[in-house]
């Protein structure tokens, strides 16, 4: 009887072994996956177990952490000027999860990141209450305020960049929401969450990063860059071969200008100043769809950007016929861009052609304020040569000084810009989007580049609306940045 007994012993051993293997699998191999599982309430409990670290602007926190008397969640997130900063911070809600910086840097903010291991260990020995680290942003409080207040009741978005580094200085989107209104998980929080979700104006949409708009005439800057880079135009003051009216190739339709403006054989500079559709449509066609696409891609089109919050990809269509190429080159047809993308375009031009990767997290700090990670500016590429970039600057400065963008003028500061009015809706039935992109330049290069879009404005359909509605906002943002540097 002992032989089968020994075999049964082995069998029992195998049962225990199977359990041992399984527990290793669960607690070692799969542990990370289980610990970050979306259904794991521990993630939330951890997130609110300690005083959450803050998101910092200009050395001051724009978030806070309030103690609660809840069994599961010891702390609750609070926000200072919530609606203004929501496009930057995102939200951290006990019931509805976290987004944007609150989500991406959750490890630092909760203090559970591996990079904070040393601090946690120290806190254990010193008996201090552990708390989260801080996320220091690149944003400029004054610029953000100017942007948010400039947009006011209107729907729209503003992105301001520092051309030399790619730092995001302002990132506003309206209408906005107050993330404190649903930071908890009570009935009140649920109610405001639901009403925000149902709101037709989509207050929780981050228009600066996640909405794409037809760029309209602001895209002519990209077309001009493509024409210069590809040798289609060499001299911005030389007459171009631009008939008026111009019948789009492959069609019998003439491309219309907005109003009666002097576009026949206009120079590139003049064409941009008065915003000639015919000149830039034909230029885009002459450059060709492949070269247009190539230049657009160099500026960052057709690719999601991570700042590190994800921004939607802006689109320059890949498949186009000749007339569509012409339309796309003046920012119509299927060309769509995020406000961030247009800010990148103008920032590259202002930075003498060098495109810096946009980012909004300057550094991560441990709870004791030690810097644990600092973002270094990173070059994304050189969409236009320095020489051509300076030509584009000259053209854009003319737009502001003598053209459609005069509302953006700032005394004693060189400002370059471009207006845009993008039609949309079937047969352009809906109210157009008003655009303005610009930069300000001082003696030491350009401190700021801005893109402003105002949705659904009741503006008349000409370029004045871009100049009339969006340009003053851009001006205020630029002025705020310049003033804050003084």
């Amino acid at each position: 009887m002992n032989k089968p007994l020994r075999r049964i012993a082995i069998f029992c051993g195998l049962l225990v072994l199977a359990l041992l293997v399984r527990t290793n699998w669960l607690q070692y191999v799969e542990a990370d996956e289980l610990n970050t599982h979306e259904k794991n309430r521990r993630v939330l409990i951890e997130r609110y177990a300690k005083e959450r670290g803050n998101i910092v602007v200009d050395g001051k926190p724009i978030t806070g952490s309030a103690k609660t008397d809840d069994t599961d969640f010891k702390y609750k997130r609070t926000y200072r000027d919530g609606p203004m900063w929501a496009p930057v911070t995102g939200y951290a809600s006990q019931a509805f999860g976290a987004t944007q910086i609150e989500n991406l840097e959750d490890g630092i903010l909760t203090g559970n990141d591996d990079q904070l291991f040393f601090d946690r260990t120290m806190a254990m020995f010193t008996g201090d209450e552990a708390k989260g680290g801080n996320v220091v942003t690149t944003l400029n409080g004054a610029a953000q305020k100017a942007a948010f207040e400039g947009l006011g009741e209107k729907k729209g978005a503003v992105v301001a960049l520092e051309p030399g580094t790619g730092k995001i200085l302002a990132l506003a989107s309206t209408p906005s929401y107050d993330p404190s209104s649903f930071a908890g998980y009570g009935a009140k929080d649920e109610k405001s969450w639901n009403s925000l979700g149902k709101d037709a104006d989509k207050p929780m949409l981050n228009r600066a990063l996640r909405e794409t708009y037809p760029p309209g005439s602001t895209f002519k800057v990209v077309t001009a860059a493509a024409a210069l880079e590809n040798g289609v135009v060499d001299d911005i003051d030389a007459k171009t071969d631009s008939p008026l009216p111009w019948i789009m190739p492959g069609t019998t339709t003439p491309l219309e200008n907005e109003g009666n403006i002097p576009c026949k054989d206009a120079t590139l500079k003049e064409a941009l100043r008065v915003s000639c559709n015919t000149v830039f449509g034909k230029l885009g066609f002459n450059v060709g769809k492949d070269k247009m696409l190539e230049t657009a891609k160099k500026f960052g089109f057709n690719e999601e950007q991570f700042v590190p919050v994800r921004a939607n990809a802006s689109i320059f269509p890949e498949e186009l016929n000749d007339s569509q190429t012409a339309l796309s080159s003046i920012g119509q047809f299927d060309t769509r861009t995020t406000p961030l993308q247009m800010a990148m375009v103008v920032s590259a031009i202002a930075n003498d052609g060098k495109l810096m990767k946009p980012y909004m997290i300057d550094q991560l700090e441990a709870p004791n304020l030690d810097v644990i990670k600092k973002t270094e500016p990173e070059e994304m590429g050189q969409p236009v040569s320095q020489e051509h970039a300076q030509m584009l600057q000259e053209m854009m400065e003319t737009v502001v000084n003598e053209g459609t963008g005069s509302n953006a003028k700032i005394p004693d500061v060189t400002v370059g810009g471009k207006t845009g009015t993008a039609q949309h809706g079937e047969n352009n039935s809906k109210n157009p989007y008003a655009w303005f992109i610009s930069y300000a330049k001082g003696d030491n290069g350009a401190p700021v580049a801005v893109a402003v879009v105002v949705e659904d404005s009741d503006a008349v359909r000409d370029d004045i609306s871009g100049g009339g509605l969006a340009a003053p906002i851009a001006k205020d943002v630029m002025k705020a940045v310049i003033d804050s540097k003084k």
Partner: protein
Amino acid sequence: MSVVTNTTTIGAIEAPSRRNTELAMLAFAVVIPIFAYLNVGLAVNDKVPSGMIGYGLGIGLLAGVGHLVVRKFAPYADPLLLPLATLLNGLGLVLIWRLDQSPRLIARAELAYGSFSPDAPKQLLYSAIGIALFVAVLLLLKDHRILQRYTYISMAVALVLLILPVFFPARNGAKIWISLGPFNLQPGEFAKIIIAIFFSGYLMVKRDALALASRRVMGLYLPRGRDLGPILMVWAMSILILVFETDLGTSLLFFGLFVIMLYVATERTSWIVFGLVMSAAGAVGVATFEPHVQQRVEFWLNPFAESTWEQSDQIGQALMSFGAGGTLGTGLGQGNSDLIGFAANSDFILSTVGEEFGLAGMMAFLLIYGLIVERGVRTALAARDPFGKLLAIGLSGAFAIQVFVVAGGVMGLIPLTGMTMPFVAAGGSSVIANWALIGILIRISDTARRPAPAPAPSTDAEMTQVVRP
């Protein structure tokens, strides 16, 4: 059985009783849970728990009584069984007490039943009853072979115990409970022991017939048709349990127990093959029409699926609990295993072990269970009579299967069944029955290791030795 003569020869030399080893191990088995208790108190309330002295005295006293009775009435018993069971029982009490402190579970109970009553005091009482039964087994059962007399009575009792729950309402989907006023019993826990007694008695008598009368087909000895009778009956019994009591665990336990004992009794591998084929056929067959079993399988395969989550998040919560423990665990009292909610301190208590003791603690727990099984199998090997061998392997095999089925279910290795972790989980039946089980194993091991009476002086003895080649 040549082994028997060997053992006798060795036994003739005075074997050490190992009682002092047991006492030393028992000291650890008492001190470790007391420290764990202190740990919970400090972690949860930042102070030494007030029940510390009572708890320490209680568990120390129980262990002490157990030890003294073993020393007096089973002096040659296996020295590890008692300390291992005590350690598990003690840690189980700590874990239950720890979950009693959970605000989440308290709130949950108040919401569901209007009031919360802690389980730890009850469990301490059950442990005391368990030890009392253990003592009773050792006092009353002077020789395990006495049990052989009750073979068929055991069968009747086991059948009654297994059938009884059918007449009581299902609790949480499984009919494994009988309610007697304030007490709820899981008769399956007791039936496990009683049916092992029946199988041992029955197989001891029938094993030759089952083993020898067979035909050889394709390398396997196939039993005669009429000898298939008993296994078919047990199989049918298990299927019935599965269908009427919707309890996969008990069903698996009994069938596995029978196959193991049949194999040991007959030494025929064909029984194992038969058993596996029949259990697979039975399980698949029942699963095709029994929604409760299908549901369990579905939960097991997709613990995080939205449809599963709506009905029961237990397995998913348990898995996340294990994950949260990681390598070293969160430390006692600092985990969130109470998120499991229902049955956190009974069927799912292992996830608290996983979360708060971590992988290291889980390995230790599983190895303690493995060690108990190993001591049981060793007792079976050492036992000198076939009945003792069968009973010991039956009890340890049942113990092993139960641990596997419960732990495997909680860890998502196999579909979850309604059984409890022996000694650790809250619940009277389990603790009491398993103490009785340990008592019987200790009795068998005592008989096995007891030195044989010195051979009667014989004038022939020396001569016999001389002629031996």
